[in-house]
Structures are given as C-alpha cells and as structure tokens.
C-alpha cells in the first residue's frame, strides 16, 4: 500500500448551506449557484471578496463554466476548479480545495454543487451524456441510468442472493429519515409493502428505487483550521480522503467500485476502523450502489451486504445511521448537487445541528461519492472521513 499521501491535517469544512430543492424550476443553474454562494457568505458572515477560491460542479450550467460565474457574480478568485464528476463531485471538491488551502493557493474556498431541473432537461441530457452512452447504451431502449443500474442490480441479485426487500430496507429507512428533514421533497412515510408494490420502471428497478430529479444547490467552505477559528466559524475536520476512477475495468459487470481499492489507505489516514464510524452517507442513486458501498468501504465483505442490511437498521437512531437527510431517494437529486448532499448532511451531523434527526454523539462521519454512468457502470468513486471538532 502506498503511504506517501500527505496528511489533510489542519483542513476544515464549515458553513454548510442548502438552496431549497424544487421539483422543477424555471431558473437556470447559474441562479442556484449564485444563491448557494450568497447563502454561504451569509452563513459564515463573510464579505464576497474574502472567498478567493471557488470549486463548482453542475450539469446544466452550459454554456458557462465556473469561469463565466466569476464575472456573473463579480468575483476575482485566485483559484478556480470545475469538476464534471456528478455524484463524486462533492468528495472531489473537498480533496482539491483541501490541497489548495493547505498550500496557500487560496484562503477560503467555496465548494458548490448547483443545478436546475426543467421539465425536459433530464431527458435532453441523456442522449449525449457521453460518447459511449450515445454509441452503446442510449440506443438500447433509452432508459437512461435506470436501465444500466437495472442490469447491475439484476446481476447482483442473481449472484449474491439479494432480494428486493433488501433494497427496500434502504429506501424505507431513508424515507423515515426524510420525514425529519424539512428540505426533503419526499417526506410521506413509506412502508416496505408500498416499496415492493411500486410500478416497474426497468425490472428489477421499480419506481421507489429511483431518485427524483429536482433543482437545488448545496455548498460549504473549505479553509484552514486556524482561519476558521479567527472567523469564529464552527467547523469539522477533514481526516482522510480517497478517489479512484475506472477501477476494476476488467470486471465484466459492475460488482464493486473503486472504494475497495483505496479504503485501507482511507482508514489508515484517519487512524480509525469502519466500526468507529458514527454516521455514513453513501451516494444512493440506486439502492444496489448503497450495498456496494457498504462492501467497498469495509462494513461487510464483497457480496455480504444483503446479510448486513438484514442485520442492521439505517434510520438516524438505527444501528447504522445512514443517509440521515433522506438521501437523494427521498430528498431529491438536484443534479450535481446530489454529490454534495451527503457532505453537507455529515458536516451538520458532526456540528450537531440536525435537530430531530441528529445522530447521538456523532464524532466520525464517512461520506462516499459515486458518479457518471459513462457506459455500463459508474466510473468515479471517492470517500472522505470527517471528524467532529466538538
């Protein structure tokens, strides 16, 4: 194992801010990005020019990138980054911003995931999502990510004996968590029976396995610990972080993600073991991927997640507090902001500001990212471990 990765010591995350989610919006992604920054500044009581770095992720910002935003929002940063990794972009934003503030390339970096959702925008994004998708998946029924995750789910079920109830356990407990999150779009209680009876979309995936695309934004600040103290900002500490792209490319069908390859280094860097994690946020675009994250991040072995799911409970007060915001399955998937949802929820859990859904004595938080169905599987994976400073 390579151990020459520099420590993230002294890097903190602060001021989590969420631009409320809407099912559809006539605003564009630029609007959501601007409101996220405005919210961050107000949350942290900062002047605009104190933010000298910006890291952005958005699917629908086109034709702009973060470059256009600097002029639109009247910023003059000395560090910018625009990351195209969707569900992995939150984790990747943290990693990039952390090194920039450690090295002094920037002082305070706003990390923002922002997207809008028009009635047609999700569908329009599919046909040309990637060259491989255009050539090799969209022509096969144009099911979008539903169809690729259906194939992975089908294989996983046949190979490891997972049942729809196992996936339902994830979806149902996230809905229970969402009931305690005012920003979640789907808060009506859901039973396992309702989950199982949902209409089929791409068998074995049914309606309640699918996230609901929506508009919204998430953002937080990355800065050095002493700077946060100067500003009297409550913060959480970045303890470890990994990312990996196109891992296990030789697997004929996706059964594991890149987490497995780097997780030992992740826990070694934080100096903890998986059983010490108090709250975990996986990227939950489909429940099967949640199970692969439990396996990849060391909560159980490869193929062991069905058993793990049956033996645990996943509400905020359960044996494995998981996706306490409701996750994307119940809170909604605000485009690339979906990759920031787990980070903001974990920061809040470790700051102790989540109210009714607060995990008791949460000290260590794990956030996992997963993004971009380029062809038959998701390519980008990453994870961070955050530690409470309380």
């Amino acid at each position, binding site marked *: 194992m390579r151990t020459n990765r520099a420590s993230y010591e002294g890097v903190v995350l602060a001021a989590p801010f969420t631009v409320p989610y809407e099912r559809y919006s006539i605003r564009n992604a630029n609007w959501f990005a601007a409101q996220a920054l405005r919210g961050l500044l107000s949350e942290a009581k900062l002047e605009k020019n104190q933010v000298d770095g910006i890291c952005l992720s958005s699917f629908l910002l086109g034709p702009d990138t973060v470059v256009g935003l600097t002029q639109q929002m009247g910023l003059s940063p000395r560090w910018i980054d625009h990351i195209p990794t969707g569900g992995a972009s939150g984790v990747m934003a943290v990693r990039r911003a952390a090194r920039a503030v450690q090295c002094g390339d920037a002082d305070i970096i706003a990390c923002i995931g922002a997207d809008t959702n028009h009635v047609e925008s999700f569908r329009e994004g599919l046909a*040309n999502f990637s060259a491989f998708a255009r050539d090799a998946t969209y022509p*096969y029924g144009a099911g979008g990510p539903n169809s690729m995750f259906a194939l992975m789910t089908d294989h996983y079920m046949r190979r490891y004996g997972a049942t729809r109830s196992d996936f339902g356990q994830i979806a149902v407990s996230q809905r229970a968590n969402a009931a305690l999150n005012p920003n979640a779009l789907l808060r009506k209680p859901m039973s396992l029976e309702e989950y199982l009876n949902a209409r089929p979309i791409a068998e074995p995936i049914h309606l309640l396995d699918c996230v609901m695309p929506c508009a919204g934004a998430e953002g937080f600040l990355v800065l050095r610990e002493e700077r946060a103290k100067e500003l009297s900002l409550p913060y959480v500490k970045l303890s470890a972080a990994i990312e990996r792209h196109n891992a296990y490319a030789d697997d004929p069908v996706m059964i594991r993600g890149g987490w497995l390859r780097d997780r030992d280094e992740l826990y070694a860097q934080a100096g903890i073991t998986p059983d010490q994690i108090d709250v975990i946020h996986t990227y939950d675009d489909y429940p099967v991927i949640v199970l692969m994250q439990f396996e990849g991040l060391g909560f159980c072995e490869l193929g062991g997640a069905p058993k793990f799911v049956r033996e645990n409970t996943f509400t905020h007060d359960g044996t494995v507090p998981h996706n306490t915001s409701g996750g994307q399955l119940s809170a909604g998937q605000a485009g690339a902001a979906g990759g920031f949802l787990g980070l903001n929820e974990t920061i809040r859990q470790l700051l102790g500001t989540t109210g009714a859904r607060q995990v008791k004595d949460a000290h260590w938080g794990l956030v996992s990212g997963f993004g971009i169905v380029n062809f038959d599987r998701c390519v980008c994976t990453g994870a961070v471990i955050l530690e409470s400073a309380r």
Partner: protein
Amino acid sequence: MKSNLFPTKNPILRTPRMNLPPTGRGRVAHGFTRAAATSDHLELQVCEQCETVQYPARDACEKCLSPELTWLKQSPLGELLGVTTLHHSNHLYFQERLPWRIGIVRLDRGPTVIAFLTKNVSPPETISDEHRTRVQVLLRLDRGGQAIFVAHPIEELNIDLKEKLQMETGCSPLGRKILVTDGKTAAGQAVVKSLLDAGAETVWVGYSEPWKSSEVIHRLKALDRVELVPLDLTDARSVNALGSELGGKVDIVVSNAEVHRTEGISSRPGTDVARAEMEVNYFGLLRLAQAFGPAMKARSADGPGHAVAWVNLLSIFALSNYPSQGTFSASKAAAFSLAQCLRAEMLPHGIRVLNVFPGPIDDEWNQNVPPPKLSPSALASAIVRALTEGLEDLYPGDVAREWFARWSDNPKALERELVGGSL
C-alpha cells in the same frame, strides 16, 4: 385480400407517424454501420499492436493507446450477466413499443456489451461458475438504419419472423404486399417465386408492352397471390397511374426492371442504346421513387403491416466500370447514386433501402460472359435472405463478393485489372 399475419387497418384511425430510434452515433461507431449493412456477423475494433478487442468504439486502444484499430469479424458468443425489462423510456420510438428487454453480455473476446434480447433468452436464477447462460450476439440495423446488437440463445437457429425485434430490424416478405417492377426477366420471375415462398401476401408484378403476349406472363398470371399490373418505367403516366393505385398499399418495392446491352463506347456509335439503358435503369428508378416513395413514407409506422423496404437491383459494375458493358455500367452507377439519395430520403421514415450489387446474372444478356454467373434463383433467395436480415447492401455470388473486396481494397487496382477485358 385479407392478411393472415397483420390485422386489417381500421380506416377511421389516423395513420401513426414514424418516430425513429436514436440516430446519434460517433464517426468511429459507424464501423458497426458498415458491418451491419452487409452482414449480421459481429465485428469489433481490434488493436493492431496488442490485439486487444475494443468496445464501445474507440479512437485509441484501451490498453496500449495505439490508434491502429482495425474492424474484424469476432466470435459472437458470450455470457449473459444481467437482464432488465424496460417499462419506461425517454425516447418516443421505444416508448411507443414498450416493453423492451435488454441485457449485459460479456463477450468471449473480452468486452462487455449491452444488447437487446430475443424473448427466449434469460440468465439463470443464480449466476455462478456452474450456472451460466451462453448467447450469441448478432449485429442488426434498427429502423433508423443504425447498428445495434441483438442477443439470441446460442442454440437458436430459426429466427421467429413475427417477434418484435425481428420485425423492427428485419424486413421479411412474410405477410407483405410487394411490387416487383418487371416480371419478364429471369431475375424478376425468380424473385417473384422466392417472395411467394417466403410468405408474401400479394405480389404485384409489373409488365410493360402488354400487347406482347408471352408464355412467361401466362405462367405468372396462373400463380396464386400474384397479380399482374401494367407498368412501363419509361412512361411517367404509366408509373404514376400504378403509384396512385398501389402506392398506399405496397409494403416492399423491388425495382428490378433493367435494360442491359453489352456495349462500350467505341463498339457502337451513337447514344440510342445508352439512352435506353438510362431511361429505364436511371430515370425509371427516379419515376418509380417519385410515384411510390411519398405514400410509402407515410405508411412506415402504419401498424405491424407497415411499409418496410425498397430493393434496388443494381450491378457490381456500378462500383467500377466494366468496359465491355460500359454504358450499362454507367447507367447502374447513376442508379446507385440515385439509390443513395432514395435511402437518405427513406431513412428518416424507417424504410430500409436494400441495394443489390450482383455480378453477371446467368441470363440472355450475359451469354458471352464466362462463368461463374449468378443464377436468377440464387439472386432471388439472396435478396429474400437480405430482406429478412434487414441488410442494406447485398453483394450476391462469388463474382460480386470478389469485386467488392477488390474495390474496397484498392479501387485503382481494380480499374487497371479491368483494362484487359477480363472480369
């Protein structure tokens, strides 16, 4: 006449319009289009440096980054690893024809592909080393003329012509109403017979110069499901009259009428013969396409018994001029070019244009051509097979295949080789 296969259309209902499958493909991915145009056999890119087989289509080798990627035939065999049935689609074509079954297949040659599944293929309840489902992946053209993969059970030999996937990729004559423009030629008669054998519901057979009674015409007349119709492709009024009568009914047009004289430039002075060839081979096709094209396009999504294909009998000499049949070659080259135009106009409506490029047919106009010659019946069965598989370009017989290979390899070499007068 009522069809056994397709329900009679309710004339009160509005004719459904065609929405094509997704047509977006990168330039490199059109390597599959080229392969699927002539065969259902799987081709994939292979790296010339390290022999890695690639999928999806790439610009550089996944393993060694070499840009030297060659399209080569590959074993179609693989293992089915997962299936899904789509009850929702983001694209109108699929939405109108739900549900769809697709699967993820690991090919024996390495790559993983997504493919449509025929109804008889499913993975085992539990996938393990002992429990596997073997499939064969065939390359087909969809209604938009784009290449797609279809996975069949490995033991499946006979394709079910009525299955949705086959209906959407093939153009089988089964149950179709078909016009063959000339019944007097040997090829025309063979094509009529093959179409009837393949289950065509009705074959309208064109014949010009009706005052010339012939035995051939009498024989055709006696056939069940055959109807003779007057058609003179040199006469716009004749073509338009038939178009008005049949244009809204015909599912497949076989444009086989041709004038064939064996002349070069200097062997016969004047332009009369060349003009006669052009009048049928080129202008005849143009008249036919103008008379029948619009109505066929309007019927391309008209229930299961919709308009489906257009066949052009061209010649391998359309690719490169065969000097001893120089003017004939030129007329076929003109027809080939026009057929490309017809295809471009038909593709957006989901109608397949099958161009047939035979070498010399064993008929009265090729008496001086040495063997091997293509027998009319071999030509006809090749056309039916190509329709059934939904091909776009057909090079039937050994001569045509060899010419096509020589032309693809080096058109200049072929040109020089033909100077000597041999085939």
